[in-house]
């Protein structure tokens, strides 16, 4: 038992110091997650102390040599007192922890202000993000990569398109479910720029394990630039190979599911690809984005992420090369 505790302390310390930018409640990078870690530590401390007290009592009871002198009645009364005190202390600790829990319960409502209203929608098995502009023409949609400005409260509206999902980026905040028919909200606040991984936390079917997202927290200036670049429609180069790729995209079923703003591709059931090449990951965190992985994905999405809602679209290797080259230009 002790060993387990020691091992766990070591592991805990390792995790606390070791990893950066990972997906961990022990590695907070914003005020909400920091508060949560403090509560976790308070609870762990109190509970571990109580545990070792109780274990001390257990060991003592087992090793004690009973003295036969005390009369039974007196002994029973003595124990009753001790047990009563123990029960009362339990109650006191419970009240204490309840109060600790209440006082820190209001964290999502830090400040009302929110610089961006971003609509997050969970879909089987990827994330859709709608950025509202001040006027509708400035709005745009992206997928699986959520950019936020550093040092600000960013309020997210959470909705589910199909089944229940749960939005969880542990280094920034606790989780919140996306429930069909309901509107939930969560506030993110990143202290420093960086990339924070998150993952769907409510079982949502076949590929629940592959429903990750990344939050990219940027300095305000960089964030503004990112917004501007995302707002722009796609520019298709004149290069013959690229145009050929674009034609493949439009001719094949691709355009029925994906939107590329500035082209006739207006499908909405799949992720918006207007700036797909600017994203770090593909398929909700399954692949690092590169020309090779993009081609691999298009060639056989069902092997890479079995059961996902993108069908295998048959094409020749020439067509595959062309369409990949085209998508690669969508920065």
């Amino acid at each position: 038992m002790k060993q387990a505790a020691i091992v766990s302390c070591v592991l805990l310390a390792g995790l606390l110091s070791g990893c950066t930018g990972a997906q961990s409640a022990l590695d907070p990078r914003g005020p909400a997650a920091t508060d949560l870690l403090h509560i976790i530590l308070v609870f762990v401390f109190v509970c571990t102390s109580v545990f070792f007290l109780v274990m001390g009592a257990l060991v003592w009871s087992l090793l004690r040599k009973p003295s036969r002198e005390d009369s039974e009645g007196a002994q029973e009364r003595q124990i009753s007192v001790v047990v009563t005190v123990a029960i009362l202390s339990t109650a006191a600790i419970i009240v204490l922890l309840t109060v600790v829990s209440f006082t820190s319960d209001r964290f999502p409502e830090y400040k009302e202000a929110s610089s961006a209203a971003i609509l997050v929608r969970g879909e089987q098995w990827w994330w859709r993000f709608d950025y509202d502009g001040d006027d509708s023409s400035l709005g745009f949609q992206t997928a699986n990569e959520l950019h936020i400005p550093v040092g600000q409260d960013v309020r997210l509206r959470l909705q589910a398109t199909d089944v229940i999902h749960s939005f969880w980026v542990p280094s920034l905040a606790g989780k919140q479910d996306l429930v069909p028919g309901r509107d939930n909200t969560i506030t993110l606040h990143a202290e420093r720029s960086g990339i924070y991984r998150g993952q769907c936390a409510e079982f949502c079917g076949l590929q629940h394990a592959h429903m990750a997202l990344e939050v990219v927290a940027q300095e305000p200036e960089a964030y503004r630039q990112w917004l501007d670049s995302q707002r722009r429609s796609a520019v298709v180069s004149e290069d013959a190979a690229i145009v050929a790729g674009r034609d493949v995209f439009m001719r094949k079923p691709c355009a029925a599911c994906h939107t590329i703003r500035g082209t006739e591709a207006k499908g909405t059931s799949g992720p918006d690809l207007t700036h797909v090449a600017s994203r770090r990951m593909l398929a909700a965190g399954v692949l690092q984005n590169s020309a090779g992985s993009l081609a691999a994905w298009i060639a056989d999405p069902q092997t890479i992420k079995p059961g996902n809602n993108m069908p295998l679209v048959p094409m020749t290797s020439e067509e595959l090369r062309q369409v990949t080259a085209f998508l690669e230009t969508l920065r």
Partner: protein
Amino acid sequence: MNSSSTAQVLDVEVEREELEPRLRRTWQSGKGIWGALTTVDHKIIARRYIVTAFVFLALGGVLALIMRVQLAFPEARFLSADRYNQIFTTHGSNMMFLFAVPVMEAMGVYLVPLMVGTRNIAFPRLNAFSYWIFLAGGLVLWIAVALDAAPDVGWFAYVPLSGPEYGAGKRADIWAQMITFTELSALAVAVEIVVTVFKQRAPGMSLDRIPVFVWSMLVTSFLVIIAMPAIMFASSSLILDRLVGTHFYNPAERGDVLLWQHLFWFFGHPEVYIIFLPAVGMVSAMISPFSQRPVFGYLALVMALIATGLLSFGLWVHHMFVAGLPPSGSSFFTASSMAIAIPAGTQIFCFLATLWSGRPIFKTPMLFVIGFLITFVMGGMTGVMVASVPLDTQVHDTYFVVAHFHYVLVGGAVFPLVGAIYYWFPKMTGRMMSEKLGRIVFGLIFAGFHLTFFPMHILGLAGMPRRVYTYPPELPWSGMNLFVSVSAFVLAAGFGLFFIDAIRSLRSGKVAGPNPWNCASLEWATASPPPPYNFARIPVVQSRDPLWRASSELPVATGLRVDRRELVVSSVVAAEPEARESSPADSIWPLVAALATTVMLIGSMFSAWAVVWGAVPIAIALTCWFWPKRTPEDES
């Protein structure tokens, strides 16, 4: 009075040597297959129940190992996503509905009648029916596993994932009907136990002399009776949504997705106590002989059982803290969830006080009691943690929670259960299990358990969600997952050895006398294994520990007939004898009724009309079952 009563034979009228053979003739079940299918002896049925539940434990354990093989390495391809989802759903559903709840009820079915000193459980035919229904439910689930069509929506089957739109095929229907089967059998047993405890206690066993285990089964039975309607409604409305096109859970038609979660957890949380409370009762029973004193704080323990039972209905929302409910409501449920630590703590302190003031003997059951104390306290601590809303927003649906509930379910219920098997095995079979192997079994299970599940706390905090069939290699989870997977095999080895010990002891264990551990409660007052009539003469109880306090021989009550099955009905509070009542004879109709019910329930997965045509054979079977026999009135 009709003619047969003139020929009645009372036990006072027969010679001492004559008594037992005549009782045996009256109470014994038939021979051969027919006897096996018609028996209503609570001991035979309970033994079947227990063995079947342990088979499901073993099968569920195999599934757990398969999951752990898949999770040992990142992005492993040992299982497909689909297989994994079926397996974790089946593991959870199987462990909860086919192992943990039934095995606890089965222990009650075996022990409660013996502990209260009666000859059979109340409604013995219903008892037979409940076993057959349970078996059918289990087969339905496991046949689906074999056909690669097992449910894949998690053991709490959240809508809309399990609804008509996203839950394709028959998988979610199989889950829902499996629930119906097990509900039915659990409800039946609960009713039997309540009536047995209230009306069939041996003369003199007033409420304050009921063994704690019997109290725990009584409270558990009430929990079953109160909690089951919620899940019945849930699973039936799910089936209706899927089959008939109702919209209970369809937000587009103003149904409500969260209604499912409320209903499920209104049942699901008490469910945990339905598993845990009998375990507390077992610990109370075992700790006394191995501390050589009565358990400390009888009244406090009973009160704690009742308080836990009541509180368990006020906690369900703590499973929904991140679903987006109003914060004021969540605060209430934080407070109530934490408050349950008080009765739980009371139980632990009473056990510690028993050990402190007793003289402990370290036999295998006692080792499991100690293992329970250590593990359950840890599970309770993490329970307090997840009860806190802010804390839960980080750990909910992560491996932290997987660790937490295995600490309370395995540490809090399975450890006492395995101890209880070592403890009552001699009573049930007449032979002892091996003390030497028992120690190794305990060592392997205890060490294997903590090595498997402790690291999961850390994995959860480090961000690993539960119910994922794999995880990416970039995240720092691989090492610990491999460690956990290897440890799971140590744990499994412990259970394997336990099964070997049990099977071996059945044939070659040391022969046990009636009371090998020198215990105080009534089940030890009769032979091991007990004869079909349990007690040749009904004991009269004069204290809480009848076998310790009785000066020389247990006083007995007489005046029951030996030529037909009769038992004593007594008053609820003081257990004053009130009447002699006949106890039903063997019958094939419970099995027939169970088969008819099974056909109806399986049919209703495919067509709603099955409820209509399926009702006909059930009605026929029930009519035959309850056909009035020409038995004389029961006598006061």
